[in-house]
């Protein structure tokens, strides 16, 4: 036992010694779900981070040195996030962390990065409300997407809305925003159904939708089972008379899973679609496909990570330091960046991005056609609740009810 222990110690010592000598430039940590159920998103998030770092390093890196990435696979398990966040901070001595997909993963990481005082970037669309001095959100929030989608839906289809949402905080908080923006735009929610993620048969929901006679349905299917809802909605012949809109359809490439006859005509709103037409996106897509192939379309979460890494690098170079205080000060100085999804700018108070929100229509080729672009949309709720410049001690997850 003793020999084994000392052997382990010796090994650990060599490991730490060799790491000490291998220091290159500034170290950043990446924790994403490369395996397990969430890897639809995690693999692309990680790919985007690698691609962004490659590009920055090719252009001279940060502070004149290349960025070094320490990457971990969270295996779609919450406990791995806390474990690897601690490891990355305490052992690897990273200067910034890029991690997480689900809100629960972000909430698991937040206390750790806060204690360690390390800038943390969360890059996924989410229900909104995170407010913390060291946390920066580059995905779009529910209020940001819903504000435009409901306005568009009411004016396109009519005032009566039915909500189909997953039965956890993403679904319930998103539903709150549907109610809120329905009222503001002269609409009305005529019914709602919150569904467990395990339901695979949507006949009861379809009956209730028909009984409520809405002009359009806000469908927020999460996970593989709920994607089946769209298929069943179309097969019941409802798509011809009832519109269907979503803030998360396409975020996990659902448009590839559903059949063309079900996917055609579904309206999605998001901060990014691969079909977005601008020079930055053309360059980004070309670079991505050269490295990762053309098999799967790029999801918005990947672009959110790409933007996060670039904004961090801009801040470090601007501050001329990778120290936390200096970097956060630079991040709060009104940074903006020409991103694949159009120009994004970091709101210094809420630590969320002002960014374009696109409304797109699913076509018959498993893709999207962009219908409308709303430029420079703020994260409405977060900007209202969260002022980290005035009150840097805030560490909250605001929900609309509170």
């Amino acid at each position, binding site marked *: 036992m003793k020999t084994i222990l000392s052997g382990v110690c010796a090994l650990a010592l060599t490991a730490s010694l060799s790491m000490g000598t291998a220091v290159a430039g500034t170290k950043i940590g990446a924790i994403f779900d490369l395996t397990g159920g969430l890897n639809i998103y995690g693999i692309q998030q990680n790919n985007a981070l690698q691609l962004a770092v490659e590009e920055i390093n090719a252009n001279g890196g940060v502070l004149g040195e290349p960025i070094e990435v320490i990457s971990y696979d969270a295996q779609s398990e919450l406990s791995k996030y806390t474990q690897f966040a601690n490891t990355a901070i305490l052992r690897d001595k990273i200067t910034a962390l890029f991690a997480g997909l689900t809100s629960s993963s972000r909430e698991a990481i937040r206390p750790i990065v806060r204690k360690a005082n390390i800038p943390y970037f969360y890059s996924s669309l989410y229900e909104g409300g995170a407010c913390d001095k060291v946390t920066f959100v580059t995905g779009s929030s529910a209020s940001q997407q819903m504000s435009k989608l409901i306005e568009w839906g009411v004016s396109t289809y009519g005032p009566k809305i039915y909500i189909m949402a997953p*039965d956890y905080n993403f679904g319930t908080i998103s539903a709150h925003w549907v109610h809120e923006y329905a009222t503001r735009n002269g609409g009305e929610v005529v019914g709602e159904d*919150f569904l467990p993620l395990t339901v695979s048969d949507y006949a*009861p929901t379809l009956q209730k939708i028909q009984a409520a006679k809405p002009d359009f349905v806000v469908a927020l299917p999460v996970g*593989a089972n709920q994607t089946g809802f769209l298929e069943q909605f179309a*097969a019941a012949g409802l798509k011809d008379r009832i519109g269907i809109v979503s803030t998360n359809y396409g975020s996990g490439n659902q448009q590839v899973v559903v059949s063309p006859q079900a996917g055609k005509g579904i309206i999605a709103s998001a901060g990014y679609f691969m079909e977005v037409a601008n020079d930055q996106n053309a360059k980004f897509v070309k670079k991505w496909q050269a490295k990762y192939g053309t098999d799967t379309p790029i999801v918005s979460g990947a672009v959110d990570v790409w933007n996060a890494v670039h904004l961090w690098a801009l801040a470090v170079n601007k501050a001329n330091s990778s120290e936390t205080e200096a970097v956060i000060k630079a991040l709060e100085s009104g940074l903006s960046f020409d991103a694949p999804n159009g120009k994004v700018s970091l709101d210094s108070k809420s630590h969320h991005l002002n960014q374009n929100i696109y409304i797109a229509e699913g076509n018959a080729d498993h893709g999207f056609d962009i219908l409308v672009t709303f430029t420079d949309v703020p994260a409405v709720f977060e900007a209202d609740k969260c002022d980290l410049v005035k009150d840097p001690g805030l560490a909250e997850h605001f929900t609309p009810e509170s």
Partner: protein
Amino acid sequence: MDYFATVLISSLSSASILLIATLGLAVVFGLMGVINLAHGEFIMMGAYSALTATQLGIPFILAIPVAVLVTMVFGALVEIIIIRRLYGRLFDTMLATWGLSLALYQGAVLIFGSVSPGIGMPQINFNVGDYTLAAYPIFMILVAAVMLAGIYALLTRTVYGMKARAAIQVPDMARAIGIDSARTNTLTFAIGCGLAGFAGAILLPIVPATPSMGFAFVIKAFLTVVIAGPVTLAGSALAAIGVGTGASVVASFMTSVAGDLFFFILTVVLLRLYPLGVSAKWRIKL
């Protein structure tokens, strides 16, 4: 009134979908006493087999037998390599098949990636009063009935069926009169897996093929088999129709969460009243 009629029809179709997904598990558990926790992944394998077959240009109707064949062959291999060594060790088989389910799930992620194109449902629907129903899910009621009749005939009208029941009910006597019980069990397990494959294939238009699709089915299928008890076929059919229809009706009039709650609470109540399953005291054997 129209609403009530559509709710009843679609609830019966929900129950049939549950029954289709359950029968493979019921056969393996009922005839062999083996709880196959990888049942959901066999459904997934059936779905991917059918999907791959259609992508190769085979019509969907012919892709279904392909899926059954693939899952049967794989099931036979699993029986020979793993299950056979663990007969009579209920918890060991559960652990082994659970491990198998994890391996199959991650295998599917590696082979097919996490998203594959679906094949879509036939866009046929019909009206009941003001309400429209998709035809394909309703068609599942017929499929479930045919499946049930087919398995019943297989087990009662064929030599294999008699051997299979003999090999499991009185294994020593079966061997004494010359039945190769090892081979019979391999075939029974393969048939159970084939039924799972059939379920995955026939339900493909309703539930798209994804690596994690098995999880959605396995819990409810497993509970249905437990509620059913020793009389495999009739018990499972009754349990699926009773609990499945009930849950779906509750979901239609209240919320889907209430429907799920109803399913699980009813399971608890039934098992409290009939600890060995509802069919424990029935005279019939299948």
